[in-house]
């Protein structure tokens, strides 16, 4: 694949026309996969011998937690692209992804709390994983607030990109700090290449479908929201041009 061709999509017009064609497909696929994964998981999987029917929450909890982190990683990559190559679409994509990532973080936290209540006997514990997600939520909040606070679009893109970079380093540091601070209740990662160790097949396959659904939903939402940001940006540019006379 020609890498240079990829930068073509950094042109706003090209991006809009391409996503015009792609977005409907991604949307349909994401709804299908999400519905399939959740219905399969909710209706057609057995109960866990220890956790009972609460294990069904895994089909939302794990994918949303994964997407909460992946959304931040995506923002990190697009921020770097903006800093290095100054492609406007890249910065706007990061802006578009942040609220989606934040909602994913909230879903992961809420489902975790609801799940934790019967399993651990508490809604909230200062467990390293839970705490890390709470910190991640704060990072999303600050990032979005900074975008909203700055009027000049290029300045905002520059500042939020640097914040995203610095924030990533500190988020990692926090993760280690929190681990050191409290060894927790949470079970190990549910997903890993060595699946036998973690989740049985009956739970694993619907989980995979559900994860695919969340990934596709994320992509569809980011594409949609990036289009909105591009249009909003063009609108501001047109209005500014008008003011200049």
């Amino acid at each position: 694949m020609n890498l240079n061709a990829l930068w073509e999509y950094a042109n706003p017009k090209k991006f809009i026309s391409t996503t015009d064609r792609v977005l409907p497909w991604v949307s349909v696929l994401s709804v299908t996969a999400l519905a399939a994964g959740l219905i399969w998981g909710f209706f057609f999987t057995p109960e866990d011998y220890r956790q009972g029917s609460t294990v069904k929450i895994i089909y939302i909890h794990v994918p949303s937690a994964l997407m909460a982190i992946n959304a931040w990683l995506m923002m990190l990559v697009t921020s770097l692209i903006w800093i290095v190559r100054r492609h406007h679409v890249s910065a706007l994509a990061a802006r578009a992804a942040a609220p989606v990532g934040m909602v994913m973080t909230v879903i992961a936290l809420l489902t975790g709390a609801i799940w934790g209540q019967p399993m651990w006997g508490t809604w909230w514990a200062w467990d390293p994983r839970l705490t890390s997600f709470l910190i991640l939520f704060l990072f999303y909040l600050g990032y979005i607030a900074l975008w909203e606070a700055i009027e000049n679009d290029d300045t905002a893109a520059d500042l939020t990109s640097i914040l995203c970079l610095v924030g990533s380093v500190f988020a990692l540091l926090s993760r280690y700090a929190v681990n050191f601070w409290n060894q927790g209740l949470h079970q190990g990662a549910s997903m890993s290449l060595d699946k036998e160790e973690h989740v049985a097949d009956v739970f694993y396959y619907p989980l995979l479908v559900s994860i695919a659904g969340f990934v596709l939903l994320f992509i569809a939402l980011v594409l949609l929201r990036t289009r909105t940001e591009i249009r909003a940006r063009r609108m501001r540019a047109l209005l500014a041009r008008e003011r200049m006379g």
Partner: protein
Amino acid sequence: MIALLIRDLRLAMRAGGGFGLGLAFFLIVVVLVPFGVGPQSTLLSSIAPGILWLGALLACLLSLDRIFALDWEDGSLDLLATAPLPMEAIVTIKALAHWLTTGLPLVLAAPVFGLLLSLPEAGYKPLILSLFLGTPALSVIGTFGAALTVGLKRGGLLLSLLVLPLYVPTLIFGAEMARRGAAGLDVTTPLLMLAGITCGTIALLPFASAAVLRVNLR
């Protein structure tokens, strides 16, 4: 560079410079805590390291927006940026001045406040050491936040929102060190981690702060 440091310190000392503001805030926090949690000295002594660290952190936070805001308003920042000083040096000096006027007094006052919260005997040395090691990181990180929000009206709340998550690792290791020290445990691990964070932030973060400040001055 030394001229800038001396000027900032002098400004902090003169009327309206805000020197001692953080210290007064620290005192208020420490005085209010017993009213909130009750006067039992066993309880107080167990939470003292955490409260002292938290109080120091909040006192630090309180004075962050002064780091650049005044120089921004009167145009000094533009003039400094065009002066023969690298921007990295300017932000480093600013952070150092902030630490000298806010962090260092907190470190020195901490033992007195420890008395008020019946900090155990063994806890004083680790507390002071942890604050001494950790507050520079708070100033440097805070300078980054202040540089991010320098051009904004009503940037104060945003500044706190941006800086607080960045403070988490420093707070965890700093408070952990003070707590372990008070409990008579080994403090080597948090000590090393805290020192690492402080060295890392001092070495790297000024570049980010300088980049951010340049963007904001455009």
